[in-house]
């Protein structure tokens, strides 16, 4: 397999005030180029930690992470992150927020007009061209998240890392943005690793669903390949027997085999 991101036997131990906390153990994962992988699990299972490891925001206690055969030692623009709470800078306009990223990645090689075009194109891609002069507090949560995605895509990253990007949105906005994301990914052939706790979202978007066991010392429990043809339409899929089957598989893993997380955590 042409694996693009490789996680080899990664362990993550946090040293907290209360002592050592073993978050992740024996994580092995390969993500192919152009693949859409979601990480799903109950809260506290370390899925965000795994994403942060791939982003380079955290370094593993042991084990190796590779991106395009190079060790991940620090964050970098080739692994763009879409944060859960959009993380747009409130004192910059949408345009400036995206431009900051564009300038960093392409500033050395390209002219000012080219940078501006890239920024405009990225905002166009997520349907936010009309709001480019607005500041984040002037637009809705869904729009902020779109701009966050535009900022990430504008860097033309090798991998798009998304940490529950739609978690804070209402159901309708979320569905809409999922559809948009499907279209964008189909167009850009991006490699995506996305953290979610939404089963439908995982099945709808993913090529593979990585299901994680409960923490502490969480690991990958199972990986489910979703072999649904693309483009996918949520309404048609709702009655598709394969979709229902995949959905049940994930639910079964999360609630039958690895349920009652609260009682374990407490």
């Amino acid at each position: 397999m042409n694996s693009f991101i490789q996680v080899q036997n990664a362990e993550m131990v946090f040293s907290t005030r209360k002592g050592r906390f073993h978050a992740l153990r024996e994580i092995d994962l390969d993500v192919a180029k152009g693949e859409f992988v979601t990480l799903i699990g109950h809260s506290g299972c370390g899925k965000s930690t795994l994403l942060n490891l791939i982003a380079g925001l955290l370094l593993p206690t042991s084990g190796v992470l590779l991106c395009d055969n190079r060790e991940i030692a620090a964050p970098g623009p080739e692994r763009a992150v879409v944060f859960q709470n959009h993380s747009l800078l409130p004192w910059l306009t949408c345009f400036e927020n995206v431009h900051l990223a564009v300038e960093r990645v392409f500033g050395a090689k390209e002219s000012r007009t080219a940078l501006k075009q890239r920024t405009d194109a990225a905002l166009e891609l997520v349907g936010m061209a009309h709001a480019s002069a607005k500041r984040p507090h002037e637009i809705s949560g869904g729009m902020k998240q779109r701009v966050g995605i535009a900022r990430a895509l504008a860097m033309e990253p090798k991998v798009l890392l998304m940490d529950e990007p739609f978690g804070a949105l209402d159901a309708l906005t979320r569905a809409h943005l999922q559809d948009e994301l499907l279209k964008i990914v189909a167009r850009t052939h991006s490699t995506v690793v996305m953290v979610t706790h939404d089963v439908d979202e995982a099945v709808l978007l993913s090529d593979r669903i990585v299901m994680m066991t409960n923490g502490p010392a969480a690991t990958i429990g199972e990986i489910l390949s979703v072999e649904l043809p693309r483009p996918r339409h949520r309404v048609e899929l709702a009655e598709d027997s394969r979709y229902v089957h995949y959905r049940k598989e994930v639910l079964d893993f999360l609630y039958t085999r690895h349920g009652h997380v609260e009682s374990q955590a407490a």
Partner: protein
Amino acid sequence: MVSAVFHTPLQASMDAKADAAANLKAAKAAVAEPLKPVPPPRPGFDWNGLLLKVLPPLIGVALLIGIWALLTMKSETFPTPLATFDAAVKLFADPFYSKGPNDQGIGWNILFSLERVAVGFGMAAVVGIPMGFMIGRFEVLNRMVSPLISLLRPVSPLAWLPIGLLVFKAANPAAIWTIFICSIWPMIINTAVGVQRVPADYLNVAKVLNLSEWKVITKILFPAVLPYMLTGVRLSVGTAWLVIVAAEMLTGGVGIGFWVWDEWNNLNVKHILIAIVVIGVVGLLLEALLISIAKRFSYDEHH
């Protein structure tokens, strides 16, 4: 009314009630009707709102002056409001006269004080704000300096004056030194707190984008810290204005603080009262100025 003949009293009373209710409804409708169509935004001035805003403070001031007038009615030593007002009119008729170093108009005195404040406070900002940034950014420095700040901050401004006199051997630099040392703390502390409170998300963005240190400072740290910094500046200016009056009383020269002391020596209580009001007004204006600056630079953050 023929039908009324057949009504039993009970029915009649019920009818009457119904009638009344209907009337009431009609009345309500009549009242509500002119309101119902949403009135177009009236360009007319909101006199009521202005009155409510302006009236209470005016009453407060009037009350204070009234009490003052009552208390000084039979006093020989303490001037009445009217006498003070007359003196103020004379004083402000020519605020910028100059008859030698010890007899200058009140305008000059205020300007000289403001100049000292500006110099002392300006130097404090130049030193304090970068220092706050450093303290906020580097934990070791924070631990090193925090106890010193806690120790020195509560020291009375005037305790610093002898040090200034000793080092600079002149009154004016000593006064400026006192302003400097007293107004530096709020700026250091607020800037440092601002730096420490920059949301981790923004710094993560900086890391993922791999921004240069310069971009991190100009695009993320500085705008994020600015509101905190301006709070520090505002507090500092307040302190500086507070301190200058006391410092000038001791050091002399031209300045509002010295002027108060001079008038005390002349036993001109009216002028002292005027000076108190003037000091208050100037302090208020400084504060208002800085609040307006702070408003301009603060960003709205609603998630």
